[in-house]
């Protein structure tokens, strides 16, 4: 069953077309990855789905409801949650307060407390530093915090924008393990990545954007074998950047 349906959306920044005629579907329980070079419109797509940039045309449905005109906060309340690019941890808040911020719309405080404890069990590094300012965390720990914060918003679809960016290889593997684990627990995931190989390895569906248009879409294994993708993003042949 389709959880998220993006149909023919168009986004402009001034006169520049950032997205045009983009379709995307995420089914319940799937990991879908969106690939593409810098400036292909991947982050814009996630922001458009979240309602943080206005659509010029097209529509978005989430869990059966038309959310094309819904404000960002009500989309998040309905379970559409973003782990933004660069993580965007609040550095003037403590680690724990960052987690609590993820649950800022929830009123079931005892559940929230239990979930925060569960996150500390999963990420002991965060538990140790729970009362320290979040700025003291390493990049990898900040990424875990950003994902933990998103989990506390009770997501039904978690969108991750380049989560592996700037992480050490060890943390990148940990991150993709975590993504698989969250998915196994039933969370649907929309993953934007530059790390094409890893992303195709965990995804059930993949879409490739180029200059704001969908140029390839389908089975990740087939895409991984596609010479055009090989050439453009896997670094065999001429790298694109």
């Amino acid at each position, binding site marked *: 069953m389709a959880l998220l349906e993006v149909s023919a959306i168009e986004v402009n920044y001034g006169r520049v077309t950032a997205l045009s005629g983009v379709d995307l579907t995420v089914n319940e329980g799937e990991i879908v990855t969106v690939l593409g070079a810098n400036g292909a419109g991947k982050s814009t797509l996630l922001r458009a789905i*979240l309602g943080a940039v206005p659509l010029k045309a097209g529509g978005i449905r989430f869990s059966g409801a038309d959310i094309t005109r819904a404000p960002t906060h009500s989309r998040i309340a309905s379970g559409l949650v973003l782990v*933004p690019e660069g993580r965007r941890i609040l550095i*003037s*808040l403590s680690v724990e*307060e960052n987690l609590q*911020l993820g649950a*800022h*719309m929830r009123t079931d405080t005892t559940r929230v407390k239990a979930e925060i404890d569960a996150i500390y069990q999963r990420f002991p590094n965060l538990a140790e530093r729970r009362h320290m300012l979040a700025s003291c965390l390493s990049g990898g720990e900040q990424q875990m915090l950003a994902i933990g*914060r998103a989990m506390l918003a009770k997501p039904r679809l978690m969108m991750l924008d380049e989560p592996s960016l700037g992480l050490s290889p060890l943390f990148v593997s940990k991150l993709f393990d975590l993504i698989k684990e969250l998915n196994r627990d039933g969370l649907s995931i929309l993953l934007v990545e530059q790390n094409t190989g890893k992303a195709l390895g965990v995804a059930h569906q993949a879409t490739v954007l180029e200059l704001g248009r969908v140029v390839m879409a389908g089975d990740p294994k087939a895409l991984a074998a596609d010479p055009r993708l090989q050439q453009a993003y896997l670094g065999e042949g001429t790298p694109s950047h």
Partner: protein
Amino acid sequence: MLTQQIINGLMLGAIYMLVAVAFTLAIGVLNFLNFSIPGLFMLGGVATFGFLKMGWPFLLAAAGALFIAALVSLLVERLAYRRMKEGDADVPLVSSLGFLVLLENLVLIRYGSDQQAFPALFPDMNLRVGGLVIGIVQLVSMAISLGLVAWLSWFLRTTNAGRRIRTVAENRETAMLMGINIERLVPQLFVCSALLAALAGLLFAINYQQVTPFMGEGIGFKAVAAMIIGGMGSIWGAVIGGLLIGLAEVLSVSFIGADVVNITVYGLLLVILILRPQGLLGRPPAREKL
């Protein structure tokens, strides 16, 4: 004599403190030096005075004045802040200053420029401890001010709404991506800061039994100084700054002379800024870290 003056200074300081907290909320969260705040302070006193003159009972008059100040603050948000926030940060500062002048002159038209006597509302009861005289009304005012600020600080630190406000203060775009409804939160903050300023004006009128159209100006500038001394954006900084300035003012009046008050107060500001440019409790400017 000295202890007596210290008590008087702390009581004046409590008024500066409330106004300084109103300023610090606006600048800390909205990055907006809101110069309509002295006007809202004045409205708190003058509107209560006006309603009392119309025969309203005190509590109703006070509530009416706070309500009017909140409404005017929403107007400032709508007309001065919301329209200008995309542009230069100095533009809403100037237009809020316009609101101050407008409010002062509207009151001037209604009540004239003379100082009006605010009625003595409560019997003149004093606590006498040793040689000290402490007015009950002053004591209650100070307790209300400190209690309110302590509550506000607790609220910001521990509630979801408080974390939302601090998130907006740190980074508006992140706040939006976290699902914080900024369009609703900003007017709420304007109301909150208006209520603090107007309450301070009301307490000033009750304690010093006078109102004028321009009563906000001197207090407003000293409150800005208090905020800067304490560290911009820090609530407890505003508390310390407010009380310090109140003390400095009262002590210099009684020990040096009334004509050096501004030299003492702004001299204190200068010295503290030289020694600690970020203010007593201010943090050095934080940089966004990826």
